[in-house]
């Protein structure tokens, strides 16, 4: 195995980690609308929902680019992996796309008309999309690690139902629960008043549920395909999550959010360490696993991509960091302007 092949395996893992850490919290915020976005009356409910959506408003679009970059980088660095994975997960990916489409449209269009029916419909789109997408991403990633029926031509031979196995469904629930917890801690950190208090309270409950799901998923996965290093990251993930919950109960909101961010990143790290040196193991005796070595691009392509990543990733991180600085202020219902949108 070539060094650059290994580097790109790591970078793809990093991109998925970035995606779950960043879009994870905006998935969580969207999915929590029906629980944290409920106030004492209709007007308060509406203001709370607007507070929640405004906290992720400047960020969700940039967060989603991590998914596109993970997809594009896989295409460029591991074309065989991209081809097998995207055609294998055909219907789940279709649902992910529909989920992302309707929720993104919801973010952009919800506030564009002052009309309750209109808003309720887009709320449904946001909630549905924010629940479905992380769940399906979790199902897909868990299936990758668990192994799929891939034949000697590197083609997927299963059906939709092959993908709906207990371990992968559990993986989906874990990613969903983790996103909800991460979103709750983000809201606790970024809002003031009622939303903040409720987010903290709900966050603890969600955190405990996540801990339960994550432990079962990671143990199951670890016993099936784990390595020494994946056990190390499993422990880190568990400790980070418990620390996050503890920090949340003590009102240390920054630490709580950092904790779930570390959990999300180490869960992905665990997946990738369990995967190594394969990128898509086969479950067929006569099949052929996709490996870092046989799925990768040519050395030249990897070299070019490495150069681009070295130069541009720091720049991206820098201006992404700036957006969190520019919009660092906590938001409460008092900050929400009266709707002036078109009827």
């Amino acid at each position, binding site marked *: 195995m070539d060094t650059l092949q290994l580097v790109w395996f790591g970078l793809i893992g990093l991109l998925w980690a970035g995606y779950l850490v960043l879009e994870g919290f905006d998935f969580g915020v969207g999915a929590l609308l029906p629980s944290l976005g409920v106030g004492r009356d209709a007007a308060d409910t509406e203001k709370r929902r607007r507070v929640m959506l405004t906290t992720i408003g400047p960020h969700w679009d940039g967060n989603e680019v991590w998914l596109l970059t993970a997809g594009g980088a896989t295409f460029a660095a591991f074309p065989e992996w991209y081809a097998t994975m995207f055609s294998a997960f055909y219907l789940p990916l279709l649902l992910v796309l529909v989920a992302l489409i309707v929720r*993104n449209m919801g973010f952009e269009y919800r506030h564009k008309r002052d009309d309750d029916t209109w808003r309720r419909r887009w709320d449904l789109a946001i909630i549905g999309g924010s629940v479905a997408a992380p769940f399906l991403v979790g199902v897909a990633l868990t299936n990758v690690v668990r192994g799929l029926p891939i034949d000697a031509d590197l083609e997927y031979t299963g059906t939709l139902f092959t993908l709906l196995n207990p371990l992968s469904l559990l993986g989906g629930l874990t990613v969903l629960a983790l996103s909800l917890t991460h979103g709750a801690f983000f809201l606790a950190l970024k809002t003031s008043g009622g939303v903040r208090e409720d987010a903290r309270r709900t966050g603890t409950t969600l955190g405990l549920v996540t801990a339960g799901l994550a432990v079962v998923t990671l143990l199951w996965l670890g016993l099936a395909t784990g390595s020494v290093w994946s056990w190390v990251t499993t422990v880190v993930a568990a400790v980070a999550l418990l620390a996050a919950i503890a920090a949340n109960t003590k009102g240390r909101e920054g630490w709580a959010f950092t904790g779930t961010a570390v959990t999300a990143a180490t869960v992905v790290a665990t997946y990738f360490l369990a995967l190594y040196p394969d990128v898509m193991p086969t479950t067929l005796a006569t099949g052929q696993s996709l490996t870092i070595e046989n799925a990768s691009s040519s050395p030249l392509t990897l070299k070019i991509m490495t150069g681009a990543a070295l130069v541009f990733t720091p720049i991206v991180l820098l*201006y992404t960091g700036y957006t969190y600085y520019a919009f660092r202020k906590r938001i409460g219902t008092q900050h929400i302007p009266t709707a002036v949108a*078109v009827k």
Partner: protein
Amino acid sequence: MGSSLDVARWQFAITTVYHFLFVPVTIGMSAVVAYFHTQWVRTHRPEYYRLTKFLGKLFLINFALGLVTGIVQEFQFGMNWSDYSRFVGDIFGAPLAFEALLAFFLESTFLGVWIFGWGRIPEKLHASTMWLTHIGTVLSAYFILAANSFMQNPVGYRFNPETGRAEMADFVAVLTNKVQLVTFPHVLFGSYMVGGAVVMGVALWLLRRDAGTDDEPVYRKAVRVGAVVSLVASLGVVVSGDVQGKIMTEVQPMKMAAAEALYETTDNAPFSVLSIGSLDGSEATRIIEVPGLLSFLGTGSFSGTVDGIDELKDSERAMADEVAAQYGPDVARLVAAEDYTPIIPVAYWTFRLMMGFGFLTMLFAGLALWATRKSAVPQARWWTWVAVLTPLLPVLANSWGWIFTEMGRQPWLVYGLMTTATGVSPSVSVGEVWVSMVVYTLLYAALAVVEVKLFLTYVRKGAEPFVDPAEHADADEDAPLQFAY
């Protein structure tokens, strides 16, 4: 049910044409909005602030759809075209990854800052975020067009017999493909043409509706800026299109011959503006014909020789045979086709519709500029039609141009290297492709209805009255935000 190939092709066509309705609007309008925003920051004249806010809203209504339909595009290669992705991913994947890393992050991040930046970041920085968004859209166009140009004219690759796939030999060659160097300006100018035309059309409609009010000069300004942008860009479209025709004749002669339904090799080849009859060759009756024009478009000389379809059929087959002989049976399968001719009527008509719609846009922009000079307001009733059609025409010209470019390349997926039939995903069933096709089509249609309604609602509402944002400046910690979702 058809084969999954047919359905996958229709799906690519529907999702791509749909996506590209919004792309040129995004590229073009982001520049116009950035211009008005810059003018506001420089002069603090209310009309610039009002136009920035008003056009910014229309821009965002459009942007949302362009964004979400773009995600489908990136995933579709792996989902429906996995054999294509395997065969050329080493080359084709790189520009896509570059696009995400260099363009998507820039565009998405700074647009988010722009939307929420009112009153929250310094105003000069705020105006520059729309420029950065614009730069992101332009970079995105560059990389995706480099990827497409590889399909039209594969360069910078070599075939690796060990892996059985095409691999990168020279990335700079891929990024500076001669087809790319002329397609990029053509598409970029086409997008500015669209951006200008949308602004002009919308503002012209409002100018006529609100003539005599205080808003009249505001809308006149927008009409004129939009018309100038569209007109100047259209000159760029014509010039780049002309060069493109010559390069196309050189690298994809079949496409040029198909564009004229020219079956026999001809010197001084004519260009027909309109024709009737069957276009299968035998009895095409050309109604309006300009002698020598096709030769000029293709070669730069009115007496130049343009190869006909019949002859090119043989030379394309010879080209395929040569590739097959050179690279062996695995590649022979990729280049084999029964017929190397694209669907001639599609190529013929889309080429003309593209040019026709483009020239009409130029005409309308010129007319509007003339009619709004010296504080005039165009009165005649047909101006409503000019206002309504101007945004639509160049958008559709873009669509026709792309349909021509892609359909004119058939049966090739990568010209001379891989046919479309061999690129489709073998593990995906017809049923699955049908399901996704139906889902996308219904979802896209529903979103189109919502988008158009919302767009028109905001157009009718017009530019909001001026409220000086400086009044917010001294507000306390708990003051409402200038913008929230």
